[in-house]
């Protein structure tokens, strides 16, 4: 059971690292960005590429992969996403989904379709109450928590962060102050992409790297964003861990039901927010 709980935390941590970018993109730009999954997948493959080509260790290869992907993330925002500001939601879905499909096919051409396993960089177990738990998984959770705390400080204390928080609440209000929000959206987009790549690379040793890995997590991340509240920084954090834990617990007793439990929760939250909550407020 202890392992199941830790697994839940690990899934939650990876979901958080992936979802935060998705949530911020939707909250600030009102764009549903399917291409987020492409950046996540490409990040993992570039990690493998740098690690093998330069014979690097896990952390240096990860840092180089993140830095290498920043121009790609910036280019997606600058040349695709920015053109979709203020457009209908379905345009953004079609454009970013097309980008995801094209990118996934390119990955298949370059790296092949076979899953690639990545060795866990730390093989140490920590003994807690007689149960050996993987230190690597604990580190993944700690990285997510530290990033959450760091982001919270960033959004509270820095001008860039405060502008993003303000834009989440009142996009037009920020523009009417004379602030060009697209510059700040680019920063947010790149930060979100970098965090997704970190999440992907940290998760890859536990799972495998394969061309569709981004698509698999994308649907779960949409559930996180909806349950946590679109654009909610804290909500995304708690929803990630709650749904990660739900997946782990349901998966322990019924492996096939883990994803279904997440989507069912999302459906219940939508029903509550749009049907039950307004009725309760009217009373």
């Amino acid at each position: 059971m202890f392992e199941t709980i830790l697994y839940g935390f690990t899934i939650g941590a990876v979901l958080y690292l992936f979802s935060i970018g998705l949530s911020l993109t939707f909250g600030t730009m009102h764009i549903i960005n399917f291409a987020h999954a492409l950046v996540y997948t490409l990040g993992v493959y570039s990690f493998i590429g740098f690690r093998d080509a330069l014979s690097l260790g896990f952390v240096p290869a990860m840092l180089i992969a993140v830095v290498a992907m920043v121009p790609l993330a910036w280019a997606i925002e600058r040349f695709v996403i920015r053109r979709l500001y203020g457009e209908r939601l379905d345009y953004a879905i079609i454009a970013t989904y097309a980008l995801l499909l094209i990118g996934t096919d390119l990955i298949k051409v370059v790296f092949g379709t076979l899953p690639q396993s990545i060795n866990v960089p730390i093989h140490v177990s920590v003994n807690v109450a007689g149960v050996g738990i993987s230190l690597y998984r604990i580190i993944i959770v700690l990285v997510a928590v530290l990033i959450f705390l760091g982001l919270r400080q960033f959004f509270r204390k820095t001008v860039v962060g405060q502008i993003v928080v303000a834009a989440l609440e009142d996009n037009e209000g920020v523009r009417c102050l004379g602030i060009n929000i697209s510059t700040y959206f680019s920063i947010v987009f790149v930060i979100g992409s970098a965090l997704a790549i970190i999440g992907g690379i940290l998760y890859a040793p536990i799972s495998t790297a394969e061309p569709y890995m981004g698509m698999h997590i994308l649907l779960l991340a949409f559930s996180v964003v909806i349950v946590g509240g679109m654009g909610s920084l804290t909500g995304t954090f708690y929803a990630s861990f709650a749904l990660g834990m739900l997946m782990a617990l349901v998966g322990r007793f019924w492996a096939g039901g883990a994803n279904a439990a997440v989507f069912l929760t999302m459906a219940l939250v939508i029903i509550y927010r749009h049907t039950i909550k307004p009725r309760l407020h009217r009373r």
Partner: protein
Amino acid sequence: MCTGGGGLAVIEVRDVSMGYNQALVLHDICLKVKQGEQVFIVGRNGAGKTSLLKTLAGLLKPHSGTVTFDGHDITGMPAEKVARRGLHFVAQDKVVFSSLSVRNNIALAAHAMKIDIDSAIRKAVEIYPKLEEFMELNAGNLSGGQREILLIGRAMIGDPKLLLIDEPTEGLAAKVIDDIFRILTSIKGTTSTIIVEQNLSVVTSLADRIYVMKEGKIIKEFDNKHACIEAAELEVYL
């Protein structure tokens, strides 16, 4: 034919039409606001008053016509550029940046206008001294009236050449309306303003000129320099 009389215009709107997709909501709007003038727009709901202010502020793009502000053509210019030129807009919904403190709400305006935070705060407090008490409070905890005052104070940072305010007294208690009335009185003559307002006693007391809008058009203009217009005269248009 654009009206508004002679004198140096801060803003001149000529034949502006604007719509959402195919449906036009503004038809050939012409208006002019002179230096230091306080101009009010009245009209029924759906007359196009908010759409007009949003078009002038750069939040909506006109289909045709021109907007000349401070001698420059700003037609279709994005809101952030319009604001940096000195045309500030206070929206109707009283939405402040609720998770930021009052101080940080003002600080963002100071950052945008490239002025230091302390002088921005002094400016906001000068407009409404009570604001100092709320400085460290989350703006989300303010009442509707306090939010409106914060929004006006925030918009005054950087000394705008023209201030657009949409329904400043809407839904507010009489006491707060008095506060807003005092603020509008204090900026009258120094900052040019266009105010959309339904409270006719406020309109007739403060307006230099009044435009009446109906179905996306300006149908009437009143000169009120000597406060000679009675609320009853305007009531028929609401």
